[in-house]
């Protein structure tokens, strides 16, 4: 095993730990909707939500870094350059995450001054980590970029997948810098902030997970390089074609010019089209391999990614993407439902597939069998589908009663929050959240236990 693959395992361990933290704070956040005065002024909802979303971003990022460190030496046939720096950065990353978490848990917020921004909370939604930690993330990503590019140069070899990865490193670094400027005009601030949220998390991450999935498909299903690279190029074209201007659907109600309504609506409406092609492709691949692979868990999670992405991003997104609908649905639990499903389909399933790839290699098992992975697969998917359905109903009740009937007043918001559809949805979300958490526990158990050895049939010698 390469040294960078050992580092990759550390990243996976950190990622799966933070996945658990994310679920924990997700459950806690769900509880506030049922018991709104819970932990009032001790640990308020906003801090729980910050922990839930920030750990989501960090664990997925760690999963991606782990996947690249896993496959890079295999792809280039040599050890990654600058490993000591990469290993150092892993510990710096973990330490920074731990310190920020402690500050969020125990200090929580400070005054409206420079000190708070640098050391407590930057105040920017989804990237609340204080300024020093944001700089730390930039340094970690710079070292990661150095590792990838320097290894390619040293190996004097480039593949199509690595070209896409290297080019993706540019926006991965540059767009994150959007987390830094201090802009006092809220419309301008939100305008650039959406670049960070949409372009960084939705576009550059899409390309990054596309590269990772291309490598996983070659590894798990033996798909040829030419085919996965052709699909990767198509994906990049679609991200550039529809994804970038699809950003416009975030610009509907933040004070930007009216033409964003048309641009955002049009390009967002195009987004389900490539996802439909992906569904066809996944069925083709599954069929060609007759569902037979040495790594069934990874295979199932890859397939779940294609369908989850189509339904979560395609169906759920299309329901609310046109401005006339979005006027009522944005900022309700309807959006939360879409966000959960889309992130789960696009990223979570992919990272779990990568974890199973690593498990098979580390354990040395010829095939991965057993029932635990099936249970975790079932519980996680059932829990997620239940959660998003519950959130969808609750969000529709908010849009219907609070926005369309009530006119978005405070009274209407309160009335919608007490509506039976909304409260039932919140209870159902909590229950399905517990199912999801159970799936996580089984997943961790399965990843940590050694697979059963499948006896290999020995050929009997022919009698003389």
């Amino acid at each position, binding site marked *: 095993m390469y040294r960078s693959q050992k580092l990759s395992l550390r990243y996976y361990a950190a990622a799966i730990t933070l996945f658990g933290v994310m679920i924990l704070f997700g459950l806690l956040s769900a509880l506030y909707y049922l018991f709104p005065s819970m932990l009032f002024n001790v640990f308020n909802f906003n801090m729980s939500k910050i922990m839930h979303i920030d750990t989501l971003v960090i664990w997925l990022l760690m999963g991606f870094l782990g996947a690249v460190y896993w496959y890079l030496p295999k792809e280039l046939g040599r050890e990654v350059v600058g490993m000591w720096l990469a290993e150092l950065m892993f510990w710096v990353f973990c330490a920074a995450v731990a310190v920020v978490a402690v500050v969020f848990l125990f200090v929580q917020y400070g005054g409206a001054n420079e000190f708070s921004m640098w050391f407590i909370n930057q105040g920017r939604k989804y990237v609340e980590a204080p300024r020093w930690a944001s700089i730390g993330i930039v340094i970690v990503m710079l070292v990661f970029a150095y590792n990838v590019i320097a290894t390619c140069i040293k190996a004097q070899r480039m593949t199509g997948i690595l070209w896409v990865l290297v080019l993706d490193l540019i926006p991965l670094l540059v767009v994150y810098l959007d987390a830094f400027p201090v802009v006092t005009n809220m419309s301008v601030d939100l305008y650039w902030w959406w670049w960070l949220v949409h372009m960084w998390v939705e576009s550059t991450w899409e390309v990054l997970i596309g590269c990772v999935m291309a490598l996983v498909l070659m590894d798990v299903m033996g798909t*040829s390089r*030419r*085919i996965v690279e*052709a699909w990767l190029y198509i994906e990049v074209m679609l991200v550039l074609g529809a994804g970038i201007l699809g950003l416009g659907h975030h610009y509907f109600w933040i004070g930007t010019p009216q033409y964003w309504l*048309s641009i955002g*609506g*049009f390009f967002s*409406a195009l987004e*389900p*089209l490539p*996802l*439909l*092609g992906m*569904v*066809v*492709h996944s*069925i*083709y691949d599954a*069929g*060609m391999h007759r569902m037979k692979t040495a790594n069934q868990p990874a295979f199932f999670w890859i397939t779940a990614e294609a369908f989850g992405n*189509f*339904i979560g991003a*395609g*169906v*759920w997104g*299309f*329901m*609310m993407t*046109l401005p*006339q*609908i979005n006027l*009522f*649905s944005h900022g309700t639990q309807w959006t939360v439902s879409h966000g959960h499903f889309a992130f789960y389909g696009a990223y979570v399933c992919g990272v779990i597939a990568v974890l199973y790839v690593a498990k098979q290699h580390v354990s040395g098992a010829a095939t991965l069998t057993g029932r635990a992975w099936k249970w975790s697969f079932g519980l996680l998917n059932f829990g997620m589908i239940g959660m998003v359905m519950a959130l969808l109903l609750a969000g*529709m009740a908010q*849009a*219907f*009663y609070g926005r*369309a*009937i009530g006119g978005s007043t405070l009274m209407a918001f309160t009335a919608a929050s007490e509506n039976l559809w909304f409260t039932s949805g919140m209870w159902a979300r909590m229950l399905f959240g517990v199912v999801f958490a159970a799936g996580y526990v089984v997943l961790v158990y399965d990843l940590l236990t050694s697979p059963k050895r499948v006896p290999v049939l020995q050929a009997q010698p022919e009698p003389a």
Partner: protein
Amino acid sequence: MTPQALLETAVLMGLFVLAGGGYGGLYAAGRLRARSGLIRAGGVCWAAAFAIAIAIAALTPLDFGWKLLILASAVVYAIIPPVAWRYLERMHSGEQATE
């Protein structure tokens, strides 16, 4: 847009994409197993998607441009699965020829 129209339109739009996905999935499964029944079921899904697109155009208060876009999408949905399938087959057969 009335409150009722809001929910009806959103649900129709969701069902439209879902039916399109059903068409893609069933068409691909039918081609894979060479079962004409599945391909026909896929065709029914596409017909449902097209019918929903017409319902969106006729019954909902969306602007004319959006209705046109949804109708055009319904037509494009019809093309994507066969085109994607042919492309996949060509890629794989090309791959086998080079091996």
